[in-house]
């Protein structure tokens, strides 16, 4: 059977890593290529770059980063952050990205999901959904979790699937940064509800959280940032732990 994927996520600003590995004597710790290479060599199943550059001009540097990464890293690469047009997607894929992750642009214009998945194939269109719980319902937030769209999360996710997304990157804003584990209730609901793979994000702090995300949350892939960057947990440890618990994993 297909293995659960472990995905480290790196924040990149103006072509430099701003949230990434903090424990290693890399020649250039700000270099996204070196960090991606490090993770690839240490067992990551995919790499995710999140572009947090403030301006559109600076985002062009991301295309160069992707091109250089494709020279040296031979595992799938997903790029997200500020993607708003088919041209953006085209240039990133041409440069060597395997998938792009769309968030706010899809909320603004859902048709971009349909157009891009028809044009490039649904395998390369990931839709990122940032979710927050209010009262008893989950709502979708845009613009890095700052803006409540008042859309019900499950309704939006169903629509995203219908429009042709190949995968959902589901982030719980309530859990993000808390290190208290994934929002398992949300994750399980979404995983059971849709047919496309779900990448869980937000809240990992301990090894057990990865296990819960797979077994209770039924996630197909697990994304984490700070626990890896600060070497609190290594990808190897996660994989050995999951293997011990009889979860299928790539070693």
């Amino acid at each position, binding site marked *: 059977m297909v293995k659960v994927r472990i995905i480290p996520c790196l924040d990149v600003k103006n072509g430099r890593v701003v949230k990434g590995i903090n424990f290693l004597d890399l020649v250039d710790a700000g270099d996204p290529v070196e960090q991606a290479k490090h993770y690839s060599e240490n067992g990551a199943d995919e790499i995710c770059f999140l572009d947090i550059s403030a301006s559109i001009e600076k985002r062009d540097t991301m295309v160069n980063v992707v091109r250089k990464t494709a020279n040296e890293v031979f595992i799938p690469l997903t790029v997200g952050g500020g993607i708003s047009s088919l041209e953006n997607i085209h240039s990133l894929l041409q440069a060597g990205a395997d998938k792009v992750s769309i968030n706010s642009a899809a909320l603004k214009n859902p048709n971009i999901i349909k157009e891009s998945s028809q044009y*490039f194939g649904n395998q390369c269109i990931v839709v990122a959904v940032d979710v927050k719980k209010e009262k008893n319902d989950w709502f979708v937030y845009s613009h890095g979790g700052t803006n409540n769209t008042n859309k019900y999360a499950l309704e939006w996710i169903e629509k995203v699937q219908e429009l042709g997304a190949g995968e959902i990157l589901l982030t719980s804003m309530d859990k993000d940064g808390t290190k208290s584990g994934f929002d398992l209730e949300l994750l399980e609901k979404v995983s059971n509800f849709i047919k496309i793979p779900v990448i869980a994000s937000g809240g990992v702090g301990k090894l057990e959280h990865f296990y819960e995300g797979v077994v209770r949350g039924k996630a197909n892939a697990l994304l984490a940032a700070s626990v890896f960057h600060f070497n609190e947990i290594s990808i190897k440890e996660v994989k050995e732990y999951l293997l011990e618990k009889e979860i299928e994993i790539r070693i």
Partner: protein
Amino acid sequence: MKFVTIVDYGSGNVLSAQKSFAKVASDNNLECKVIISNNLTDIKNSSHIVLPGQGAFATCMSGIKKSRGLVDELFEFAIIKKKPFLGICIGMQMLASYSEENGLHEGLGWIEGRIKALPLNNLKMPHMGWNSVKPQKENKLVNNVQDYYFVHSYYFDCENNENILAETQYGMNFTSIVGKENIYGVQFHPEKSSSQGLNLIKNFLN
């Protein structure tokens, strides 16, 4: 001197395929040129051809047919001259006689079989991620169980068992490597499968 051409017909991420072959060449000190091209002279002069493919089967087939003389030149290379040929993902599926993806579409027909939808069986589609490839008979690409990266929703239903070189389990056992003499096809992406993938590429080049 080896000369690898990654066939360019407007399909997605061909750069990764080129980079991975170039990496294998430099890591193993192979004298090897790797280009992305649809030029007929390049195809003729190649020692190895790689046919990549992403997205929909019909789009890929029409892309390859649109490039004047390309299909004939590839036929000359693989079928007449019997030089080493590798199809990746949709590039593998195009080797089949037909595909059932969004209607019935004719393939190259070099390896008898049909492209069919993977059964849903409550599984996530596309089949995305790393999965084990189990060799079914001796072949030059893979000789033990290895994990490779897959992204697809359709599979190659081989007509002749002898063309099934390896299988993978996802709701069913499907053919993940096909082969017929000098022609190989892999459903997964060796160019995205880390050291295991690079190893397969090396085996193809040897």
